[in-house]
């Protein structure tokens, strides 16, 4: 093993029986470098939005394709892409950004069905799935499939049409991507049975958001880079601390330092917390 790697990652005489990475100077250096990295990413996002930006990597067509794949796996007919439902989904996403909410029903009581009917789609059956903070269409559909209520929507045999909107914008002060999935069956497609009453409150116009209905993947999501670096750093430190604890235990090393086991517990908690906050949400 190269001596530099051993010096950096493993307890040894050269590093006073403690991996150099765990020395205070190394922690300080990592903190400094990470801060510079974050400032650079932010600056690049502002200066070169065409390269590094929050434009979504999720293509609506892919979400439809994946949804239909799941339906086919369950012996259900595929859904047809419907422009009215897509327009309704885009309007719903715009309303969420404009009113700054994350829910099926807006703070002023607007229900999803309002967007569907105002888009010109007269429904017999209708449903809605929402997702945010995902950067991969597979992850979105997998998350929906893992949730019983969303899965019921995806695999509902009553639906014939589907509309998707993937919209980037700012929610709660954070750049995010909303995925709105709307299902429906036209009233004319089957005997008329009206679904429940709908409370209608006129939604306000869309704010400065960008729909990715015409999908053109061209940017790298800076959050993906941040997530990769952050989780990578935590995992490296957890690995080095684990090796340190084992090595100290096996060689009965006595040191006057902080407790590696305490650091390990804290970083494991941080890793779990980081995974909780960095994953996408569905409702």
């Amino acid at each position: 093993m190269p001596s530099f790697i051993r010096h950096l990652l493993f307890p040894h005489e050269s590093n006073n029986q403690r991996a150099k990475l765990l020395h205070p100077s190394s922690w300080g250096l990592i903190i400094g470098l990470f801060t510079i990295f974050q400032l650079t990413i932010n600056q690049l996002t502002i200066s070169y939005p065409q390269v590094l930006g929050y434009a979504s990597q999720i293509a609506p067509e892919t979400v439809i394709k994946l949804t239909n794949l799941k339906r086919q796996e369950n012996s259900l007919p595929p859904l047809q892409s419907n422009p009215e439902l897509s327009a309704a989904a885009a309007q719903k996403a715009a309303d969420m950004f404009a009113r700054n909410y994350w829910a099926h029903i807006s703070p002023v009581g607007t229900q999803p069905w309002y967007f569907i009917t105002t888009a010109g789609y007269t429904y017999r059956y209708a449903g809605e799935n929402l997702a945010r903070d995902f950067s991969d269409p597979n992850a979105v559909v997998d998350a929906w499939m893992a949730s019983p209520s969303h899965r019921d929507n995806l695999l509902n045999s009553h639906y014939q049409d589907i509309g998707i909107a993937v919209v980037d914008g700012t929610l709660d002060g954070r750049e995010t991507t909303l995925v709105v999935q709307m299902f429906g069956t036209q009233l004319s497609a089957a005997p008329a049975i009206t679904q429940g009453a709908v409370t209608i409150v006129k939604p306000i116009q869309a704010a400065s958001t960008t729909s990715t209905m015409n999908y053109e993947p061209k940017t790298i999501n800076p959050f993906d880079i941040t997530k990769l670096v952050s989780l990578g750093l935590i995992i490296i430190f957890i690995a080095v601390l684990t090796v340190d604890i084992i090595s100290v235990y096996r060689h009965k090393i006595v040191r006057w330092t902080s407790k590696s086991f305490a650091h390990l517990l804290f970083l494991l908690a941080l890793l779990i917390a980081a995974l909780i906050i960095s994953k996408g949400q569905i409702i």
Partner: protein
Amino acid sequence: MTFERDFAHHPMHYFTLLCIMLVGLWGIFWFNYSRAVQLGIILSMASSYVVWGIVHHAHHKDLHIKVVYEYILVALFSVLIFASLIFRA
């Protein structure tokens, strides 16, 4: 003092630390809808962690400014990582 002796002599210290982490994680999970509350929780966890380190080493009678500095650096690192993820920097 070796690790196993430390652990055997102060099981309550580590149990307390584990409880702090578990309660903090529960809070972060529970308040998933509020980034501000989550940030407050991680700041509390980090502060508690530094205090835990000081108390633990004071009991051991091996408290030194360099040791405190190490706990502060680990706590600072954690808050920085968490904040960068929470604000999608």
